[in-house]
Every structure is written in structure tokens, then in C-alpha cells.
């Protein structure tokens, strides 16, 4: 029943082939959807430009993930510690996901200036949410048997968290983190709309306005690769940390 790993290549190849074919057969202008071959050529040909901007965005992403992690862990813990607090904060957290960047861009500028801070914050706002929700659900899903055990041991909340809830919620945490690092890329790009001078998002906006759509998609390819890389890294961490599964 086990499928050969050839499936992987076959699927990836057929997706790309279908795309390439549809670009060539249907008269779809290349500034609407460039064929993957053209994107690949641009992604390589403009590598120095892309790499320089990817560096900027990459740093924003990493910092954004760091900030998001700190906020998410703190929030999920606090909300798990107190159900009323959860009820009070949840609407604000959900609201934070409904705010489009243009509405608060001037605010970000006022608070964080034009430096990388505003981009990092914007990325973090997008990343922290799936992590917080997943971690909280993980905490809450803990087996009552174990909760009782820790209560009987007279464990303080901090110790319960460290020895019981945290390891219990780890698989949930990683599910959230995987979503988080995947949307981190778009988070940083959106952040770069808040007045920046560099980065893949900045590059994309400019290229799009000039109808250099192949460059837009090449930037997306670079971004995607960064996302996939982060995902793989998280997968690696997961296998190391959740060693008992």
C-alpha cells in the first residue's frame, strides 16, 4: 500500500507542466500569469537583486517570528490560566486579524518609524494568531487524568505548565507554528507596504506597477522558498522535540 516517493516528483512535475501548458495554449498574456519557465529564468537571472531584497525580508521574518512567539506563548498561557481573561481577550485577538494594514499604516509609522520595526510588528501580528490559538487549544485538550495527578502533587501553576501542559500542547504548538511560519512571508511583505526602501515586498509592488510580472512571480518564488525552508526547519525541530511520538 505504500506509495513510491516517485509520486512526489510526479505530482510536482504535473502541476508545473499543467501551468506551463495552460500559459502556452490559452492566450494568457505573460503579465497576467507568466509560465513557470519564464519565472524560473527571471528568478535565476535576477538572483543578485532578489537575494539582496530577500535578505532584508528574511531578517524581518525571523524577527517577526521571534516577536510573535514571545507574544503567543505569553498570551496563550495567560488565557489558559484564567478563563475570564480568555473571554475578555479573545475578541480583541480576533479583531486584530480583521484589521487591514492600510488602516493602521500611519499608526505603525508614528509608533515604530520607518525602520524595520514596523515591518516586524506587522509580520508578528499575522504570525502570532495561529500560534496562540493552537497552543491554547493544546493546553485545553490536556487529559483530565494528568491534571488531577498534578493537582494532587500540589504543583504550582508554573510547574504544571512546564512539566505537563507545555509538553502536552507541543504537537498543537507545532501545528500553529507551521501555519505561522508559512504566513510569515506574506506578513513581512504586507509590512513592507508600510513605507520601506527594500525587501521582496517592496520589489514586488514596484515590479507590479511596471507590469514586470515575471519579476513579481520570481520574488514570490523566493519568498515561497523561504517559507518552505522555515517549514522544513520547524518540521525538524518538531521531530526532535516531540521525541516521544
Amino acid at each position, binding site marked *: 500500500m505504500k506509495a513510491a516517493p516517485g509520486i512526489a516528483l510526479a505530482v510536482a512535475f504535473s502541476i508545473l507542466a499543467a501551468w506551463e501548458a495552460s500559459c502556452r495554449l490559452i492566450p494568457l498574456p505573460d503579465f497576467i500569469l507568466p509560465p513557470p519557465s519564464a519565472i524560473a529564468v527571471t528568478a535565476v537571472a535576477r538572483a543578485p537583486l532578489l537575494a539582496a531584497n530577500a535578505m532584508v525580508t528574511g531578517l524581518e521574518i525571523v524577527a517577526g517570528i521571534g516577536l510573535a512567539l514571545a507574544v503567543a506563548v505569553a498570551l496563550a498561557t495567560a488565557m489558559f490560566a484564567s478563563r475570564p481573561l480568555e473571554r475578555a481577550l479573545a475578541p480583541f485577538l480576533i479583531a486584530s486579524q480583521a484589521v487591514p494594514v492600510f488602516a493602521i499604516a500611519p499608526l505603525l509609522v508614528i509608533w515604530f518609524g520607518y525602520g524595520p520595526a514596523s515591518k516586524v510588528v506587522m509580520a508578528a501580528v499575522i504570525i502570532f494568531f495561529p500560534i496562540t490559538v493552537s497552543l491554547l487549544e493544546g493546553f485545553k485538550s490536556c487529559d483530565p487524568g494528568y491534571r*488531577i495527578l498534578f493537582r494532587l502533587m500540589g504543583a504550582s501553576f508554573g*510547574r504544571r505548565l512546564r512539566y505537563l501542559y507545555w509538553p502536552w500542547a507541543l504537537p498543537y504548538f507545532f501545528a500553529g507554528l507551521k501555519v505561522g511560519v508559512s504566513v510569515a512571508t506574506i506578513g513581512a511583505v504586507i509590512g513592507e507596504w508600510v513605507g520601506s526602501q527594500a525587501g521582496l515586498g517592496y520589489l514586488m509592488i514596484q515590479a507590479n506597477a511596471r507590469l514586470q510580472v515575471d519579476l513579481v512571480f520570481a520574488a514570490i518564488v523566493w519568498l515561497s522558498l523561504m517559507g518552505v525552508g522555515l517549514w522544513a526547519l520547524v518540521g525538524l525541530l518538531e521531530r526532535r522535540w516531540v521525541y516521544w511520538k
Partner: protein
Amino acid sequence: MLEIIGIRHGFRDLAVIGRMDLRAAGGGFTVLIGPSGCGKTTLFNILTGVVPGQRGRIVWQGRQVEHLEQTAAYMQQKDLLLPWCSLLENALLPARMDGRNLEEARRQAGELFIRLGLEGFEDYLPAEVSGGMRQRCALVRTLMFQRPLVLLDEPLSALDAITRRSLQSMLLLLQQDFAKTIVMITHDVEEALLLADRLVILSRRPMRVMETIDLDSPKPRRASDPELLRLRERILDVLQQELVL
């Protein structure tokens, strides 16, 4: 001394414990024996506050208490070992939760591991050892609680006859040398007779005390003692009648 006065309990429309009185002498070994599903575990859960909303009174050392959460070490029927902790770490949990000196606890746990035949498996995860070994580890953990009262819910059910015997003598040592008050649930009539100062026979659901037998013969006792053999037959008869009715 532990006194239980007029405890009643039911789940939904199922009456589980119907007015129960029980006294367990301080420093004594009380054994509860009764049909499967009669409410023994529920009684322990009420005593430790795991199942809330008890009616009736619990008196410990002459003072009425809400429950025995902070007084009793409780070994539950399920082993409830943390899957991400090695056997040794699992055993050290109560010490960690108390913020106790870990050196001392480690020494103590090491001794218990040897006594219970777990030496060499300190670093194994619970999923990597046998059912009996998990049960023994849970027993070690319970013994690490350092509480004056010990509640054991079928602590030896997964063990072979020989290992069981050696652990029975260990329990006796625990009672005698450390002056612990022990209340134990078992299904094994012979085990009950070997260990008990007071043997309590429980009825079917709704559970009441059918008979209390005080055993004064000195310990360690021999299973082939004709007095015990006769008692064994009587107890089996009582239980038999209760179940056939």
C-alpha cells in the same frame, strides 16, 4: 485516623455510593475489596477531591476536611505516566513539584527502582517498557509523595505472583517503618489477607460496607496459614452471594 461518614454519590441517575461509613486507623493497613464497578475508585476520587460535590463528611486526624488533596498520596488505577519523561523523571515528579531537594529524591528513587526491579530502566520512556513495569514506576512515584496517608487503587494488578509478593512485603515495610496510613483497593483476596489490618468487603453498586474484618495476626503472614485459607473461602462466598443476588 481517617473517618468517612455518610458519604454518598451518584452519576446522572446511577447511584454509585449509597451512604458509606468507614474508619481507617492511623498507621494501619486498610484493604477494600469489592466487585468490579461497585464504586471503589469513585470513593478514592471523592476522598481526594477529584470528583467534586461530595455529600457526607471526611475526617482526618480528628479534623473535618473538604478533601485529602494535600494529605494523601494517591496511586490511580491508570498509570498516568508522562509519556515524555523517562521512568526516573516520572518518579521524581512529586519531588520536583514540591521543590524538594533533588539529590535526596534521586537517591530515594534509585533505591526504590532497585527494590521494584526497575534498575537499568531509569532512562526508558514509558512507551518502551512493559505494562507491569509502568505500574511499578507509578508505584514508585506514589511512594515519592511523602504524605502521611497513601491511597492505592489496585497497585499490583499487572504484576506476576512473585514480583507481587516482593512488593507486598515492601508495602508492609512502608507501613511499619514509616508509620504511613495505607488504604488499598485490590481484587486479590489472598493479597488482602496478607496485608490488611482491617479488611472491608464492599457490596455491589450502590456501594456499602458489607462486612469489616479486623485481622490481628502478626505480619508477615503466610498464605498457606489455614486460618487465612478459611477466611479466604468465606470472603469469596460473601462476594459470590453478593454478585449472584
